[in-house]
């Protein structure tokens, strides 16, 4: 793609102090770009720093060094005031559909939040936008008056997605959006994300530990291992012809829902693991 990237992350480092002078390096100089309308899958295991990267982009965690550039503007250390307006451009979908919605607020109340900073909207416009977005994510019209407690996990994740897209953002950070969902619900939510992404021209950073899911949704895949990017490239390329031993181990480790193929993969995994052990 020849257009300038929507989001540029350059040599990002994040250190966490752990007391007694110890420092944990969550990200050790990570660089990646996201083009407008592109989905970048970020894969890694626990402790790889994938969630930290998402949090830095969202302004929830301070970067130690490096830069996050959104649409040409350095937002690494954006002020609280700037961050508040950035909320219209960069949004989030969290893993836990139970924790991400306030149980004491109606769904309509929660959905209104990204619109509150826009003072030109009248209450009537806002209600209309909420009704539109709920229809868009396939929720019944009376959802706005109800409380999150009355919905299932999959429905709540739809509501969380509605909150993310209601202000028409340009980038959504999805942090394990389907990990807490059942397989049958996962398919619906993935389809919804895909559909919204295409129709609204959204760029997405799709963070997940599940390679199959990442392969399904992303255009490009980035593999994170202990705070470093070990491999990134076209999704098909990374998944079908992985270059780095860690990517190979990761791919070989994920069990395939076919007992006959899985038997062969087991042997592959043992080889990949030995290669990874040799590499480190």
């Amino acid at each position, binding site marked *: 793609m020849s257009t300038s990237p929507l989001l540029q992350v350059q040599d990002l480092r994040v250190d966490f102090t752990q007391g007694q002078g110890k420092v944990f390096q969550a990200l050790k100089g990570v660089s990646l770009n996201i083009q407008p309308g592109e989905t970048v899958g970020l894969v890694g*295991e*626990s402790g790889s720093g994938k969630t930290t990267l998402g949090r830095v982009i*969202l*302004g*929830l965690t301070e970067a130690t060094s490096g830069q996050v550039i959104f649409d040409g503007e350095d937002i690494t250390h954006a002020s*609280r005031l700037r961050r*508040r307006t*950035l*909320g*219209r451009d*960069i*949004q*989030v979908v*969290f893993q*836990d559909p139970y*924790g*991400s*919605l*306030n*149980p*004491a*607020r109606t769904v309509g*109340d*929660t959905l209104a*939040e*990204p619109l*509150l*900073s826009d003072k030109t909207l009248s209450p009537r416009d806002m209600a209309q936008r909420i009704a539109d977005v709920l229809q868009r994510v396939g929720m019944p019209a009376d959802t706005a008056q109800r*409380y999150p407690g009355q919905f299932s996990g999959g429905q709540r994740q739809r509501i*969380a997605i509605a*909150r993310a897209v209601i202000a028409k953002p340009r980038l959504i950070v999805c942090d394990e959006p389907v990990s807490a969902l*059942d*397989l*049958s619900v*996962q*398919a*619906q939510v*993935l*389809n919804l994300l*895909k559909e919204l992404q295409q129709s609204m021209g959204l760029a997405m950073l799709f963070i997940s*530990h599940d*390679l*199959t899911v990442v392969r*399904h*949704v992303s255009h490009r895949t980035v593999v994170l291992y202990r705070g470093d990017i070990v491999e990134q490239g076209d*999704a098909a390329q990374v998944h079908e012809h992985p270059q780095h031993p860690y990517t190979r*181990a*990761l791919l070989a*480790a*994920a*069990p*395939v*829902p*076919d*007992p006959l*193929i*899985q038997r062969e993969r*087991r042997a592959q*995994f043992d080889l990949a*693991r030995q290669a990874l052990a040799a590499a480190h």
Partner: protein
Amino acid sequence: MNVATTPPPSASFVRRLLSRPLAVVALLWLLLLLVLSVGAPVFAPIDPLEQDLLALKQLPSAEHWLGTDALGRDVFSRMVHGVSLTIAGVIEAVVMASLLGLSLGVSAGYFGGLWDRCVQQYVSLVQSLPTMLIMLAVLAVFGQAMLPAMVTLGVMGSAGVSRVLRSVTLAVREELYIAAARISGLSDAHIIVRHVLPRIAGPVIVQMSLFAAIAVIVQTGISFLGLGVAPPAPTWGSMIFEASASLNDFPWLLVPSGGVVALTVLSFGLLGDSLRDASTESWSRPAVRQNVKARQAVKPKDLPTDSLLSLRDVTIVTGSGNAMRTLVQGVSFDLKQGETLGIVGESGSGKTLTSLSLMGLLPPGVHVSAGTAVINGEVIDLSNEKRLTQLRGATVGMIFQEPMAALDPCFKIGHQLAEVIRLQGLNTPQVQAKVMELLEQVKIPNPQDVAQRYPHQISGGMAQRVGIARALASEPRILLADEPTTALDVTVQAEILALLRSLSQSRQMAVVLVTHDWGVVADICDRAMVLRHGKVLESATVVDLFHRPQHPYTQALLAANPHSAKPGEVLPTVDDKLMNITGVAA
């Protein structure tokens, strides 16, 4: 008092509160006091200062409902007129404590950092000062004035209140919806009002109610000393003082004055307790464990000869009578030595309950209404929890989804294993040797070193290995594994599955694996059964199940897996699939 904004969920909170008799009594008493204080001239028309020197120290009569004191003043009238002074003092203190405590506690908890440290220092300073001395000093400066004294009490009391509210706010601050609100561009003030205050309203009300009880005592104490209000004016404290002066010749005086103080303090305390209980009731009420009588076991007729574990018609229900719901219905299976059976299903399918029923570990409120297990030839009715408990560990072992939660954080790994092994009556060196042997069996590198570590010092994968080692310690014939790899990374999952596979083969253990992950089923299971809404839809060898699924639901679930779809294409969802196949919605 601080009144929280009440969204509809708290409407049921009020109802829960009013269903508690003690809370109702406490509220009625406080309401009565309030009415008395407003309508004092009506309810007690006798002037509380009027002395009737012909009627000194009289017991209750029609004229003087609670008798008269040493100066012949009407005790009932003095008590009623004293209410407003006491209530006013309590309100002053509570308003001060709640305003200051709320703003300090919430701001410190929400913003953290330097401000939090300053507030913490201030709170420690205030809490280290003796409240009574400070109040006496204030009274000395301002003369006999209740307002500055009670405001001082409020300031001193706000320290403790703010400390509690700070910690509640700290917990709420980490909620994801607060992060989402921040990303959406809400200001801090907005977030506090919309998201933090409603969540901490419960603790605020409880704290204030308990603080009010203290304020009543302090207010009474000050007027007992004659410091708050100039003596002839009627206050509860001065009444107690007068009663104590004539304690020897007329003890009755202490009953109304002391009684009203005691009742009020008790009411505030009980109200606080009830508020706390009512606010946590919805999630902390323990379900009643029903004592189901063990039924006589009946040997099933169709038992295969080589089965190590057989279940027949397991039905699990919750509730009773009209409210009874069936969670698992008629589940049966047979399992041979060295064989691994997968129980696959989505959340709410009853897969976990089925495995727990075999351990006699069903959660409270849930019980087996029918079902027989044949374990190693022994026929046991699943309602016989006593017998199942005996088999637990020795014959049937179990590993859990959260390896960390299954280990006690206070003890070293070696100790936790030794604890189980010691039950077999081995001596100490034998136990230690067995611990090392088990850790080696689950392929932990450096077993000597790991045995000396605490659970938080090892990784999740390592913890699951320890969990497996502990389950193996008593050499069970059957191993139940409930989502044993769901919480683990894929590379660790592959290793744990490999370990389970080799152990089940080398020990000829029968393994029941509960999971929602079809990849795991394909990897480790010989046979699998698909559960949905508590019913077995189909049961087959894994090759048949994956290559020739019989039930539409199984077909739909397998198709919904992004693994079998072309990247980027719309995934067939289970509902659509079932609709196409059966013509009805799932």
